[in-house]
């Protein structure tokens, strides 16, 4: 079980985390969904004891990570964001090294390596130096090195970045299998579809704060039935803000000199009036309507798109 209470972390004046709390049960996949710089890796860093929080607590299976880091890390498996493997060594030798550090040896070590190699589909390439591996194979081995000791808590930091859809799908299957074995998993990503497909519960994180949390169902409901209209062009942000606020049926999310974002109900009926108004206050170059979705919730919460 993972328990995180009110984590704060500052880098100089940059507040990377501003009060993060969540809890993950055994067998559950908790997704931390947020854009680059949101604070996902910092949270993971605190959970594995590499980053010291300015305030707040984190515990793994009830063991406080700040007070007893070595004990806490015994139950922990981490898959770092960047592939970290010894390129001149084979897959097997890499796993053997990390396995030993996790206290495995002898037959237990060999057995664990065989099992995890089969699981990540690398058994037939186990003896080759990993410098010849493809990106997908490296990612799978990177995961294998983090979970070969059967940890009850697993932290995965964007393990599918830069992979093709097929490899991504196989990695998601792998993560589900690990959760099915009873591990509590924190999975960070900035891919919405991945979060939707994989996670039992989600926390939407931006600028160091979890803006919304819940199951997919709960979050979809929170997003509501409203659609989002995005106008791009040239505007006078202050004047536009004043005008739009006069219309109670429109809810402004964001107004800049180049972009307006607002939520409405029945967008197609509202569009004409909105365009007319915008035209008096600037030039519209592009209009987009988004149907209700998790992405809308994200835009509504943060005023920006996930992949900016």
């Amino acid at each position: 079980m993972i328990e995180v209470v009110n984590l704060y972390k500052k880098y100089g004046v940059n507040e990377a985390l501003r009060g993060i709390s969540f809890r993950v049960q055994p067998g559950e996949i908790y997704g931390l969904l947020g854009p680059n710089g949101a604070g996902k890796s910092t949270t993971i860093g605190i959970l594995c004891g590499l980053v010291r929080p300015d305030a707040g607590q984190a515990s793994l299976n009830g063991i406080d990570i700040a007070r007893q880091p070595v004990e806490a890390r015994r139950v922990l498996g981490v898959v770092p964001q960047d592939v970290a493997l010894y390129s001149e060594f084979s897959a097997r030798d890499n796993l053997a090294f990390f396995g030993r550090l996790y206290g495995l040896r002898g037959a237990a070590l060999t057995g664990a390596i065989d099992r995890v190699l089969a699981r990540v589909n690398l058994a037939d390439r186990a003896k080759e130096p990993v410098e010849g591996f493809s990106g997908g194979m490296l990612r799978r081995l990177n995961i294998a090195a983090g979970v070969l000791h059967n940890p009850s808590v697993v932290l995965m930091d964007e393990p599918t970045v830069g992979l093709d859809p097929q490899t991504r799908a196989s990695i998601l299957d792998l993560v589900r299998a690990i959760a099915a074995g009873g591990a509590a998993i924190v999975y960070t990503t900035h891919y919405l579809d991945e979060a939707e497909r994989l996670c039992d519960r989600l926390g939407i994180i931006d600028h160091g704060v979890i803006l919304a949390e819940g199951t997919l169902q709960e979050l979809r409901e929170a997003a509501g039935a409203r659609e989002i209209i995005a106008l791009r062009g040239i505007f006078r942000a202050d004047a536009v803000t004043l005008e739009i606020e006069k219309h109670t049926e429109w809810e402004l999310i964001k107004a800049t000199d180049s972009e307006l974002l607002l939520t409405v109900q029945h967008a197609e009926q509202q569009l004409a009036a909105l365009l007319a108004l915008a035209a008096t206050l600037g030039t519209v170059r592009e209009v987009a309507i988004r149907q209700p979705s998790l992405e809308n919730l994200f835009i509504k919460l943060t005023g920006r798109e996930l992949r900016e």
Partner: protein
Amino acid sequence: MRATFIVAAHQLRRVVRNPGLILLLLAIPLTLAVMEYGAFGRSAAEGKLPPVKVLFLDEDDTVVSGFLPQVFSGGPAKDFFELAQVPDKQEAARLFTRNQAAALIVVPRGFQDALLANRPAELVFYRNPIQSIGPDIVASMLQMTTLIGNGLYAKALEPIRQVKALLDAGRDPTSAEVAAISQGFFEAGRRLQGLDALTNLRIGVQRPGDTQARTGFGSDPAQFFAYVFPGLVVFALMFIAQALAIRLLRDRLKGLQRRIVMTPVSPLAVVLGGVTYLVVGLLVLLVFLGVIGGLVFRIPLRDPLSLLAIGLGFALFAAGLHLLSISLSKSDRSAGFVGSVVVLVLSLLGGTFVPAEQYPPFLQRVAAIVPNGAAQQGFIDVLVHKMPLVGLGPGLGVVWAWGIVTMALAVFVERRRLRA
């Protein structure tokens, strides 16, 4: 401390599998010893070794590139290398296949510009695949020159600045300016040929505190090497320690160290794993060099226990020095630079190139208290002056004091960096 052992064994295994630069660095003391022998022990040598033939292709055709062949044709090197300019790579390839050259050095177009603009400038080095030892010798000579040259780069900065001013002004230099710049390069070149100073080596050796002159190595080759080899070994060990430590730094930059620290091991155990790897690695290489010294140069390896006592203390220092350097560096380039400068300064102070016994009294005292100078003198005292372990007291104390203090500091800093 199981984790310490696992980490150390892992790193050592990687070096064995993939020695890389370390082999080249091992060649430094061997090559230099042979070169010095060629230059100074010649009276004792029965016929010289045939010179190694080096081809030189100047694509850059500039003032700086024209200066480069001096590396192989000046100072003590001139007896050891035979230099030939080639017009193009085809000609070089032809000489290679006829086994008439060991290596080709190409100065690529833009070399001088890069140097003047303070960008990395690169020489391209091709080895003749038919030959085995010749190219290695050339490579280590180049390596040495680059190391020393980088350290002395600042010395050549003045003439380089003058050239740059001329180029910027876009006019042809006057004959007076050409003379001034050539003079500047000549001066820098003389410094580059650090081994030149050895030409002044005296044979009778005066040791501080001794009233009568001791017999030096004279014309006995074994004595010569027993006298010269320790300094070169100490010098090489400092660079090997750097190469070993930079591997740790690269691991850190690739996130591998982070990954190790995420496992249930204490940061101290991880740091000590690195320390063990460095110290054991250095000791093994030291023993290897010692055995080579015994077998190839016929140095009588007396009193192994004393030699090991000095070696261990010095390995602690060399490992600690570079561990500290990588701990404080953010890139392998900066660690490489800082480490090399420290090593070169220590080598000059400690008398690697010019035996400290040749120094004026004040510098002799300095040489006796820098760790490499003390270690070098310790080895010479055992091998040449046949001193017993107890007689080594002060020198051994200096080496171990440096070793312990430097290593303790390095462990402290590195551990602090690893702790969250």
